[in-house]
């Protein structure tokens, strides 16, 4: 969380898509003087946000971000959310529309243990990807390298990117060595 928080400029107006229990937004508010809103679909998470005093709007992200005007946020976060959405590409363009900067993180399916699973003929089941293929909420399976291709295709300029493995930043061969991919981008 700290690694992501450091990517967010102090004082930013933040929209956190799939904000979970509001922990990151509360951290950004308390330590980086940020303001903004979280979007959540889950009742228990909405309650947790309310208990933290974090602004939360209960919405289904699949319905888009019609609630928010163009460039109305400094930063739009989409952490560990992208892979759950059917309209991945649409959400990415919505992220770039609403925010000056987008930050996404998602499980990197090209992390080497995952590759070994696939070479062995099975879909990966790991700490970061604990689900079986038939019950996984991760309906979009992508890699660090795949995102670079998609970003180029959709006219997103990558400002920074790295992998995260065991809580540490991975900048060398992140597509192979990191279980989580992080990208910071803007609309070019």
């Amino acid at each position, binding site marked *: 969380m700290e690694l992501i928080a450091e990517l967010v400029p102090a004082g930013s*107006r933040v929209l956190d898509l799939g904000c979970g229990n509001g922990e990151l937004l509360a951290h950004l508010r308390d330590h980086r003087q940020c*303001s903004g*809103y979280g979007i959540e679909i889950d*009742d228990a998470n*909405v*309650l947790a*946000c*309310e*208990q933290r*005093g*974090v*602004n*939360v*709007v*209960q*919405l289904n992200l699949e319905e888009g971000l*019609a*609630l*928010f*005007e163009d460039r*109305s946020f400094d930063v739009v976060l989409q952490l560990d959310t992208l892979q759950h959405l059917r309209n991945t590409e649409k959400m990415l363009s919505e992220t770039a529309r609403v925010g000056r900067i987008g930050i996404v993180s998602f499980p990197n399916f090209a992390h080497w243990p995952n590759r070994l699973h696939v070479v062995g003929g099975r879909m990966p089941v790991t700490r970061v990807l604990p689900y079986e293929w038939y019950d996984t909420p991760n309906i979009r399976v992508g890699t660090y390298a795949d995102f670079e291709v998609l970003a180029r295709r959709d006219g997103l300029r990558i400002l920074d990117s790295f992998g995260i493995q065991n809580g540490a930043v991975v900048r060398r061969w992140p597509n192979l060595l990191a279980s989580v991919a992080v990208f910071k981008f803007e609309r070019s």
Partner: protein
Amino acid sequence: MTTLGDVQPQSMHFAEPLPLKSGAELRDYTLVYETYGTLAADRRNAVLVCHALNASHHAAGTYGGDPKSEGWWDNLIGPGKPLDTRRFFVISVNNLGSCFGSTGPMHANPDPAAGGRRYGADFPVVTVEDWVDAQARLIDALGIDELAAVLGGSLGGMQALAWALRYPTRLRHCIAVATAPNLSAQNIAFNEVARRAIVTDPDFHGGHFYEHSVVPKRGLRVARMIGHITYLSDDAMEAKFGRDRQAAALGYTTQDIEFQIEGYLRYQGDKFSEYFDANTYLLITRALDYFDPAFAHGGDLAATFAPASAKFLLISFTTDWRFAPARSREIVKALVDNRLEVSYAEIAAPHGHDAFLLDDARYHGVLRARFERIAAEIRNGK
């Protein structure tokens, strides 16, 4: 089950005329209200609760130990409840034009030309904004500058929103449940059917039925029946009644009750016509129709909310088709556009509009969390 125990309504008389949105004025009036809990020495723990169409100042507690007299929002208000009266001083005001004690059409018209007659149809048309202005005067008289929160559902939610727009510095939190920025054409249409049922009842006498010692009960019954249908979801009605029959065998009658839903609606209509005032029903449905704060801003809801500064909580219910979630989202958007603090919960409750009066755990959980936050802010001197 009430935990507040017996409560006492109070009343306050106001001799200074209240200018109304219509241009008329109410020259002299009384507000009936109840309070629960204790006003703190710093007077920062006051919460105003606004009532909806057919409710009153009696939001919580009982009268004379009678469990049947429990207030309409007793599941929410009381010691240990989401709006905890051990922490908050809760004020619930009966609105002008009502039939539960505050000045209304059944009271004597002070205009000398009226010759001591009751107002009847001559009671001035009151709006949500007028109610809020009257509530503000009561709050003044209670010595409260700033409310910790204003809370309301449905028409009460409109009052909470109006507070945030008219008195932005006098409330810290605005909590609006199952409400809308204005009524849709369909909503106005339902209200109009109800009003026509009342007005065309031969016992209505142009609104001066008091002098004829009759009550337009037929009209009131039909008005309540149509209203009641719109407060329930299709699913809730199906689950509760389905096609259940009154008797095992059909009677092949066009006028007697064949299905239980008919009996239920007639019962609700009968009950309502015994206690509700026909002129009040007309006035309150009109107040709903007229509420449209964005009209003065060319329909721009974002511009409308520019003066607001409260922290907002909006709640809607997925099966509420009378005040649908999409209407609450319009308000959320306007608040976000103004960079105001807002949270919005969309509760997947099956009950339709009536859900705002029920004690769904998710709904009350969010309200409890908000009031705990407000209490913490008071403790921390924020």
